[in-house]
């Protein structure tokens, strides 16, 4: 299959180009954080430590060596899967990220799914009412939605469904008293694998509000892009030709219009998904959700350099992976990009 060959080529190419990108990002992260007026040696000792003790710690940690050597050591450790120990939590950074990353991925993926459903449904509806009076009304609402940020939605949904009606939980990932199965770290997946249905339902209930808040905030731009791409596609000759061949409007929309209009929408989704990794931060705080966002906030507050470095690298890798996935999807959906 030519398509798979092309995708394989793309993967090889993208993985190869990802290496220098990661090197540059890691160097930047390392240098910037080392230049910060924070002394890791002093921080890892009790406040009453003497200058000699601090100096001893500095040489033990390698902080007295030149910067490039420090980077070399750090990079070497990194390649062996060791990002260092958190100064504040006194735990391996890999373990900390390993605990929080799945939570954030789950949140981001489900939020993106919500955004996709709302975005495509809303975009189709906006397109469907084109040229009618309803269009102006829908236009108003879509702009209103567009101007509401996700933390307002978070607070609004939390107050209405969590506090006022008390129908949904709004703190953490699981209510107290529920068993937390651990296989992969992905809570929903793990409860499903272990057959723990009550935990699964409880975890899903916890996901509803934060995912809705994020999804609703992301969907209006998707709606508007889809609508305008559909309007563009409907200017094209092949739509008119499909009508002249007697195809039904529904078929023309789904098979001819949407298939072309989905491409720009997909690019936007890729961008949004990348942002979502950093963008869950406020929502995680509001819902006390134990994800990367909360970890980052703690790390920054405590100037916990190893965590910041680890989280920064994780973010970089996530963005690279997402862009490779989106590009592969693009290849599948847009035959023009496939090399002959």
């Amino acid at each position, binding site marked *: 299959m030519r398509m798979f060959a092309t995708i394989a080529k793309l993967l090889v190419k993208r993985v190869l180009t990802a290496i220098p990108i990661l090197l540059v990002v890691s160097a930047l992260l390392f240098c910037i954080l080392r230049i910060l007026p924070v002394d890791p040696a002093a921080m890892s000792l009790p406040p009453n430590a003497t200058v000699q003790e601090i100096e001893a710690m500095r040489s033990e940690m390698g902080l007295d060596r030149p910067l490039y050597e420090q980077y070399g050591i750090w990079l070497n450790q990194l390649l062996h899967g060791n990002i260092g120990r958190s100064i504040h939590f006194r735990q391996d950074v890999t373990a900390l990220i390993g605990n929080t990353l799945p939570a954030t991925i789950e949140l981001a993926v489900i939020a993106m799914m919500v955004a996709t459903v709302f975005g495509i449904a809303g975009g189709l509806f906006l397109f469907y009412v084109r040229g009618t009076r309803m269009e102006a009304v829908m236009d108003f609402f879509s702009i209103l939605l567009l101007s509401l940020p996700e933390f307002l939605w978070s607070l609004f949904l939390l107050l209405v469904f969590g506090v006022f009606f008390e129908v949904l939980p709004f703190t953490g990932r699981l209510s107290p008293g529920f068993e937390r199965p651990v296989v992969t770290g992905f809570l929903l997946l793990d409860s499903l694998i272990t057959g723990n249905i009550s935990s699964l339902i409880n975890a899903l209930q916890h996901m509803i509000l934060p995912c809705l808040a994020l999804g609703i905030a992301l969907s209006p731009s998707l709606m508007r892009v889809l609508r305008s791409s559909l309007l563009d596609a409907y200017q094209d000759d*092949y739509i008119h*030709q499909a009508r002249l061949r007697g195809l039904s409007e529904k078929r023309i929309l789904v098979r*001819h219009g949407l298939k072309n209009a989905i491409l720009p929408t997909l690019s936007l989704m890729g961008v949004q998904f990348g942002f979502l990794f950093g963008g869950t931060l406020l929502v995680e705080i509001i819902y006390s959700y134990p994800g990367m966002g909360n970890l980052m906030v703690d790390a920054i507050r405590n100037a916990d350099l190893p965590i910041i470095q680890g989280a920064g690298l994780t973010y970089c890798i996530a963005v690279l992976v997402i862009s490779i996935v989106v590009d592969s999807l693009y290849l599948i959906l*847009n035959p023009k990009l496939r090399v002959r």
Partner: protein
Amino acid sequence: MANPSPSGPILSAQNLCVESLGGKERFPVLTDLNFTLEPGKILGLVGESGAGKSMIGRTISQFLPHGFAVTKGTLKFDGEDLVGMGADRRRDLLGRDIAFIPQEPLSGLNPVLSVGQQMKEHLLRIGLQPGESWKLRALKEFEAVHLPHGAALLDKYPHQLSGGMCQRILIAMAFASRPRLLIADEPTTALDVTIQARIIKLIGEMQRRDGTAVIFITHDLRLASQISDEIMVLYAGRPAERGPAKQLFSDPAHPYTRCLQLANPNISGPRRGLFILPERMPGLRVLKELKGCRFASRCPNVMEACTQTEPPLADIGPNHIAACIRTEKTPDIVPPPLAPGREIASANIHFNGERLTKAYTTAWSPFASRSSFKAVNSVDFTLGEGEFVGIVGESGSGKSSLARLVVGLDTPTDGKITLAGRDVTANRNADKAFRRDYIQMVFQDPQSALNPRRRIGSIVTQANEATGLLNSHRERMVRAAELLKEIGLPPDAAMRFPSQLSGGQKQRVNIARALCTLPKILVADEIVSGLDVSVQAQLLDLLLKLRDEHGFSMLFISHDLSVVRYLCDRVMVMYRGEVVESGRTEAVFSKPQHDYTRSLLAAVPPDDVNSEWSPVLAEAGYQVE
């Protein structure tokens, strides 16, 4: 599938009127349309753009633009009322009994679906025989339209195919259901001449196979007369003349038909002057207020009575009607005498290109070896003072690549360019500045070549902004006024934006911009294609007039051989990057030496409607699409 009714026409229109009702004012779009189309016959619809040709197709499909509606008369398909019928019944007819072939084959197919997917969708829609596989049926239909390698074609996407192949696929789709009526709206306008000939022959072949009635919409009267049984000439939404194709072409009764015919340069016989239809067709909005004949404002035979009442469509012969009260005067319309031929004996060579070559190499990739392709291959040519040299050839023959080398948009990979004695091959910055003063380019599509946000006055004097010659805005506006006068636009056009001009006017502005700094050489890439014949004649005339005034020479690229024959002193025929034949235009066109030149010439529909049009359909040694 087809069940030709033994009696009656397949399509008949009676007093059909289409009006625009939406918006503030109501105005007519089509008026008094009367025609009948018998099974198996071809009706040609001819006229300038805006005459309402395509509107007839849209009325048949009832996909009219927003606010347009049939307000009077009837339109019947095989006795069924097309206008009043329910949407479901009409949808049922479309694609099955009434098929369409579009103008732009490449955009007529969905870019993200493979040919097979689209063919399958259509075949399932029109219904297959019980037990018939769509794939076998698709291959059968491809075979009928002479598409080789049908099975491989199913996996291809439209962008991987040529325009001619896409058009064949669309024709295969259209004829798959053995339709009773086919509407072909300028099906060959976007294609090369040789491919045009093949596609036209193919439509004729398929139409004869199925006994399909065809409405053939075109702006080319010569082409219409070759393939139609009957022709209807439309002017501003109303038929001007209708009659048997050959008779109408050889003996036109309406002055408009005659003028259209004379506005198109001839391809054989002695060259003649072009009849320049002045101005343009009245807009549909002003028609409401217009008394008298619609054509009166441009008619050479106009008299007082013409402007009083609209002339009725009167019988002037068997099956021949025309809306003119002075049809007997029509043969008196003659083209102006040809401007005396220029003797290009001038030894003053402006431009000299030797062994010009432009090769493109594919980008380095670890997965494939690099390959090279020569868009222009060792082309020698000169351009003397005041000389117009035409380049003809099909798309992909390297015409535009050569033009880019001449202008300096690209640097040749091999060869030498001498401009007024100076070697500018390397195309360094100093060479470029020298070149810009010397050579200017007129681009093909005025729509995209003119910045929509700039006023005409500043567009035409754009070149002066960079040179610092005319520094002040006021000086430039004075120059703009001069230029606009030269190209025949009113002075107030300087303050307008491109969107406020017609297509022909925009192309004039495009020419004026190139002429601003009085270059010695113009390079014009297909500047009259896509324009109406009347506008084309105006522009060709303008170019000749401007040459007399300024004495520039021109490299004129065109796929239209008759235009090149009219305009150019010398011609070069390009095929796959090489010049296969060149010489004085008259000599090359009357005694072509190369097979390829012969096949190009044979592809042009002949001037004489009675001589047989025998294009070379699949020439040996030359790639068919």
